[in-house]
């Protein structure tokens, strides 16, 4: 057992876990943040993507101990109260989800994509960059539309700040 100390969605937490615990297990089972999903469990599908120190990583492919001292943001941490994050709002408005299982990972990856590419984002780039996130409903068309829509909204909201 080890004590892992990290910041999750802005709150400092300290959790005692077995050394073999994965970051996704710590989030789901110790902190009850079940919005982060486990899909394939083999690092392929991206349902478990969270942000660690601002970068979109697969939380099923990290030991909890590797996140000691890190700043982690999950899908539960991106809305401002009742106001959805622009990426969440764009997924809703563009019907960017069917069953919703892949959606938390899609949204966390998509925010990272917009942060890296900013306004220069085009459809081909979004499709290429989402290759680490798999949607089994094959809803990619509206997911891509949602990401492009959100890229515009995020630019506007950044400019307004």
């Amino acid at each position: 057992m080890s004590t892992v100390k990290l910041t999750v969605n802005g709150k400092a937490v300290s959790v005692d876990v077995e050394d073999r615990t994965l970051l996704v297990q710590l989030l789901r089972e110790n902190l009850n943040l079940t919005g982060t999903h486990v899909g394939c469990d083999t690092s392929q599908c991206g349902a478990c993507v969270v942000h660690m120190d601002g970068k979109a990583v697969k939380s099923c492919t990290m030991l909890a101990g590797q996140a000691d001292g890190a700043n982690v943001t999950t899908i539960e941490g991106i809305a401002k109260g009742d106001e959805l994050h622009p990426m969440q709002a764009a997924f809703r408005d563009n019907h960017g989800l069917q069953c919703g299982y892949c959606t938390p990972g899609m949204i966390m990856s998509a925010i990272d994509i917009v942060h890296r590419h900013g306004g220069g984002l085009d459809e081909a780039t979004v499709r290429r960059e989402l290759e680490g996130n798999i949607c089994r409903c094959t809803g990619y068309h509206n997911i891509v539309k949602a990401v492009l829509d959100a890229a515009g909204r995020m630019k506007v909201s950044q400019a307004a700040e």
Partner: protein
Amino acid sequence: MYQTTYHRASSVDEAASLFAKGTEAKFLAGGQTLLPVMKQRLASPSDVIDLGKIKELQGVELSGDVLTIKAGTTYFDIMQNADVQKAIPAIAYLTSVLGDPAVRYRGTIGGSIANNDPAADYPAALLALGATVKTNKRSISAEDFFQGLFTTALEDGEIITAVSFPVPAKAGYAKMRHPASRFALTAVFVAQTKSGEIRVAATGASQSGVMRVPAIEAALKAKWSPAAIDGVSVSASNLLADIHGTAEYRANLIKVMAQRAVTAAG
């Protein structure tokens, strides 16, 4: 995953001494291969020594005609690095078609070559460019380093600290990418050194891991052009054959990827 004990090392020396204390320890770099393998219970190290926070293993240096990438540098940082893009853009390109964005944030060049997957990308770059692998004990040429499937010259407890690449006159990489695994179904790295030597390495093709392709090297030495490879015959013997492709298919892919790599190199 079986039980293990996690350690975070803050220096290469500390990592080596932690390793020596474990009964069956393993080094953890980005973890993008080791952790999936541990989850499948194909590996069960007693101790996992995390190299991820060791500052001396991070960064890129360009000094004259040598580009040095420290072992713990992530794929993302390699891709974005201005010295890599300037000195050997083929390495930046190779890195951009490796894994997916989340994997590229975590995976490292040292982890990739220590694992020596027969379909990994970096081994082809190291072999074609005549790179040198630096460890905490010695320097090893790429030729001597890669010793077959998942096998390297590394001794127990030896830690890769950096890879040094001589900056080539020209280099290019072309990859037939498996769409699900994103590994190379076959990929080829071509390089023309500043002294005029031609080196060609293929990954994802051979049953013995990364390999040079002498027939294509000879053709490119006669004339550096994609058309020069048209008449070359690449043997299918000892090439991989699986559900994704026959040995003959991979033999042909070696030629086609080499031609595309030469086009990319210019």
